[in-house]
């Protein structure tokens, strides 16, 4: 009997379905939140190691409870709403940021069949939710009634809209290989896809440049350095979140890291073979898929932290140039190349609806 089936039997169709999904949502959201806390700790430890420092090492064993202590401090602080702020929008913005960062996890397959909502437009759902993420930032920028926050919000809006375009084209290339928008199907399409032994689109020479571009675009989408222009402490104090304090700030912070973790999970799903082991050898499948998935996520997170620790921030015109004049033409051209190659090799011959 399935998990939902048991609940339906116990509580009836409507209530049982509701309770089953509620518990499943909590079973995803709670580990994500704990993961965010550990990711913040890991981030600080990695930067510290790269800068020959110790990093957090006081609260708890190896300082692992540092993030929880910071969160407790933020909880106990006073929420300050500026007198000139547009209160409703000001309070709504962090909630939108945080909620969107959590709902996007609904379609992520953690293992074979281990997914909350197995949508057949899963990739588009992710694209839609991540394109809405800009509202939290732009609304907070406007509602704060402060020039620093406003400039941060405008920068962020322009940046995220620009990079979404090339991100869309990269997703198109991946989608053409898998011939599906369902994330589980995309992962399964990568099983032994290169030379019959390598699992993962990244090993495909035609998709390798797309994988690299997607990583860079993911950095831009999550406002991570070198693309953290919306925050830019040096010129904008803290950008869009400058007027936020206490829990409203914490929601932005948690949402940002939840987004980063999601990108660390999405890149393996699209390019590294998701829950599959990197090589298509039977004994590697003895290790559960969930473990492969988490270790790929951890590896990607290390790359994110590595970039943040080593790369200086872009200037704004350079950021726009990279997005519109380099990534957009390159990804557009590459979609043409990939689709031409697939058409030429008869990849679509078995697709339904071909006339």
């Amino acid at each position: 009997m399935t998990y939902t089936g048991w609940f339906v039997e116990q509580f009836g169709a409507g209530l049982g379905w509701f309770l089953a999904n509620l518990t499943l949502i909590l079973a995803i959201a709670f580990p994500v939140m704990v993961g965010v806390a550990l990711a913040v700790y890991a981030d600080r430890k990695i930067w510290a190691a790269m800068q020959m420092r110790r990093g957090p090492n006081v609260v708890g064993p190896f300082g692992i409870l540092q993030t929880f202590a910071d969160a407790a401090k933020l909880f106990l602080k006073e929420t300050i709403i500026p007198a000139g702020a547009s209160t409703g929008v000001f309070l709504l913005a962090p909630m939108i940021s945080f909620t969107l960062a959590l709902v996007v996890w609904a379609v992520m397959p953690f293992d074979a069949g281990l997914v909350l909502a197995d949508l057949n437009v899963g990739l588009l759902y992710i694209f839609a939710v991540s394109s809405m993420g800009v509202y939290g930032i732009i609304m907070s920028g406007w509602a704060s009634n402060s020039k620093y926050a406003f400039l941060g919000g405008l920068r962020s809006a322009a940046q995220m809209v620009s990079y979404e375009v090339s991100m869309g084209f990269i997703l198109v290339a991946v989608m053409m290989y898998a011939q599906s928008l369902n994330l589980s199907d995309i992962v399964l399409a990568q099983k032994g896809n290169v030379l019959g032994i390598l699992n993962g689109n990244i090993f495909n020479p035609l998709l390798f440049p797309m994988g690299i571009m997607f990583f860079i675009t993911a950095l831009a989408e999550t406002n991570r350095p070198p693309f953290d222009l919306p925050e830019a402490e040096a010129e904008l104090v803290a950008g869009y979140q400058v007027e936020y304090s206490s829990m409203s700030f914490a929601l932005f912070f948690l949402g940002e890291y939840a987004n980063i973790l999601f990108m660390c999970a999405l890149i393996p799903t699209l390019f590294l073979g998701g829950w599959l082991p990197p090589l298509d050898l039977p004994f590697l499948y003895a290790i559960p898929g969930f473990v492969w998935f988490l270790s790929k996520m951890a590896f990607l997170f290390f790359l994110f932290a590595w970039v943040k620790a080593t790369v200086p921030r872009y200037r704004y015109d350079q950021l726009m140039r990279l997005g519109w004049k380099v990534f957009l033409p390159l990804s557009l051209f590459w979609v043409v190349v990939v689709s031409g190659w697939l058409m030429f090799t008869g990849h679509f011959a078995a697709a339904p609806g071909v006339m």
Partner: protein
Amino acid sequence: MAAFAFYLFAGLLLTSGLMVITAKNPVHSVLWLILAFFNAAGLFILLGAEFLAMLLVIVYVGAVAVLFLFVVMMLDIDFKALQRGALQNLPLGLAVSGVILAEVLLVASGWTAGQGVIVHEALAGPPPGMTNTQWIGSQLYTRYFFVFSMSGLILLAAMIGAIVLTHRRRVGIKKQSIAAQNARTPGGTVAVGKAAIGQGVEL
């Protein structure tokens, strides 16, 4: 459950549509408009058109409305003046909207679903073994190919028009030339001079 979802989405859609035109602040209007788009996407999902729902969110909520918000946030509008103007133009506005309402009523009263429209089998929904998305794609690129490419051409023309209208060469601005920067060598920019004691260097 589906009925509840329908009334929820439809009610929110109408409410937010009303708030778009009654909100005092234009930024709030745009935010209500975004909520309206979002609920329309919800209605699409109830109809089983999940591809269209996602596209509505991606295109309208994720791109068009962001740019709307972008522009509206930078405008400095005096609402008192706008409202005075609205009262002056009220009779004309009422007349125009009355004519349009009459036309809509005339058309709607004489129309029943399916009449006068050639209902292709395409409208019957995807055949088994095909997802919604594949079905839309296979129809767009075969039966409706000319209509589809025509709309693409119209959009291209609009895009070229927008670029031509906004493109101008500005004088007196500094612009970065990456190629020129990369082409710089120490030989062209650094000069080593020997300064004698008590004298400067001639550069």
